[in-house]
């Protein structure tokens, strides 16, 4: 077999770096939203990604729904989990300090992981790639088409979110909550609703990350923690 040139190798490392990095960048986006509004680190963020992947497997493979229906259905379900998390684990805390809330998110992540292992077991699951599995080659380097979906969704999400936070009233309201929740509520911002919205958004984005990544590297019940840790590292 032909030896590959150093240039091709370097190009491959670059491309692989970009593609794998975009996976974790998507996870990081989810962290950012909740942090922007509440100043807490949501340790259950990785679990949203995992749920996105596994629920999509259930919809697409077990229930046979076509991609175009299963995708939004999965996002809605994971968003619901995010909303439940806020309502049941975050909102009820009487005297919320950042530390207490972070511990609450850790508890939720353990709960979600346990439930997932109960429902899906410990095996990895696969999803069909959105546009097939024939790798695309150029200049001696190779990339799976699915990675373009990941990068595409990442760019769309990043652009949409920056417009949302900078140019819309709700987005600005959410940023205000992070700066000073008391002042924010004084000017009529419903802080609790903004927090709810941040969890819902983060869950939805986490789900998108999970759905787009599973065709590449499979998904199993305990993938969340590592994705979260590496995604968290990419916040900075």
């Amino acid at each position, binding site marked *: 077999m032909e030896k590959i040139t150093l240039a091709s190798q370097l190009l491959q490392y670059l491309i*692989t770096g970009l593609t794998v990095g975009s*996976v974790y960048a998507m996870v990081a986006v989810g962290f950012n939203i909740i942090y922007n509004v509440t100043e807490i680190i949501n340790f259950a963020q990785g679990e949203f990604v995992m749920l996105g992947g596994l629920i999509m497997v259930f919809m697409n493979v077990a229930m046979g729904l076509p991609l175009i229906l299963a995708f939004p259905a999965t996002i809605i379900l994971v968003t619901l989990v995010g909303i439940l998390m806020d309502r049941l684990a975050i909102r009820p805390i009487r005297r919320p300090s950042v530390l207490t809330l972070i511990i609450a998110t850790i508890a939720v992540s353990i709960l979600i992981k346990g439930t997932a292992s109960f429902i899906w077991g410990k095996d990895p699951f696969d999803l069909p790639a959105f546009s097939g599995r024939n*790798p695309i080659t150029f200049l001696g380097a190779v990339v*799976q088409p699915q990675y373009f979906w990941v990068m595409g969704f990442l760019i769309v999400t990043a652009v949409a979110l920056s417009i949302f936070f900078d140019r819309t009233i709700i987005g600005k309201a959410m940023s205000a909550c992070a700066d000073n929740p008391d002042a924010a509520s004084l000017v009529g911002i419903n802080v609790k609703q903004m927090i709810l919205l941040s969890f819902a958004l983060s869950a939805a984005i986490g789900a998108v990350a999970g759905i787009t990544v599973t065709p*590449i590297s499979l998904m*199993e019940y305990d993938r969340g*923690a*590592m994705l979260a840790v590496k995604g968290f590292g990419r916040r900075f």
Partner: protein
Amino acid sequence: MGLLISQANALDEAYKVGAVFSVTGRASFLGDPEKKTVEMMAEKINAAGGINGKKLELVIYDDEGDATKCNLAVKKLITRDKVCAVIGPSLSGLSLAVIPVAEQNKTPLVSCAASYKIVHNEKTGKPYHWVFKTPQSDSMAVEAIYTHLKNRGITKIAIMSVTTGYGASGRSELIRLAPEFNMNIIADEKYGPKDTDMTAQLTKIKGMAPAAIVNWSIGPTQVTMIRNWKDLGMTAIPLYQSHGFGSRKNIELAAGAAEGVLCPLGACNIAELLPADHPQKSVTMDYLKSYTAKYNEPLSSFGGHGWDALQLVVDALSAAGDDKAAIRDYLEKKKGFVGQHGIFNFSPDDHNGLSKAAFSMVIVKDNDWALVD
């Protein structure tokens, strides 16, 4: 009155064997099929009249993959349940932790874990007196792979391993045995158990142009790296997986990329492929049929280790009764035991009884296994 007394006597007429498996927890993929297998076997044996007329009573505990719980379970089995032998644990670390308990209480222990250290006391260089194990050591899997490579005339290889205990152990065996088979390891790449992509490691290997790649991992990474191997157009370089690859599910998950991948497997994984005159054919086919019929799930390679352990103890009870020392002596002298994972030949120096012959080389062909010589 007479009925009561005879009933009380009937209760004493049972052989009690203890088992500790990691039925739940991180190693449930080991302990769950092991438990199911031994329960199935005990049911069958008792339905056929027991062992020399006596019932086989299994006492099974779940150590949940925890060393402390395992230790307590073994102690309980020996002191409170008064079993004549213990089978399990499922994990190497836990097995090593309970060896002192077995030795102190002079009770035979037949472990279902793989580390060769379980049957090799580093200080004396000999096996522990009361401890045996049924799984093949990973050194044997490595020998099987290296023998195959040597017969193909390959010497320049690249190795990849996952950074868990399993991967690290396989890697050290690959490195240790390389000189013996004239293997030149030109690349030694590693990856984490939750990594999503091995393209970088494989690109580096591609640049060094080895004649074969040996990958040592278990879990989703062993499937992901096959996909990467195919995507990078490296299928001209033969890929050997470890014996952890032995499940049809892995072929399915690789989504067509596994065609041509080789791995060493114990006979029970390929029961249907064995020729009719293979000595393990009937024992493995029987196990395959009973297990899949009873539990409606595919056969597990690890359940086979449980089968081997219990059957050895049953044979010992049948021949020597439930005196612990008699069972131990019987096991140590046992030759030609036809098990799920090989034909065992025990001796005072070898409490595992297997060699690389316990592995058959198998290739993925048309999305299923095929024997390769």
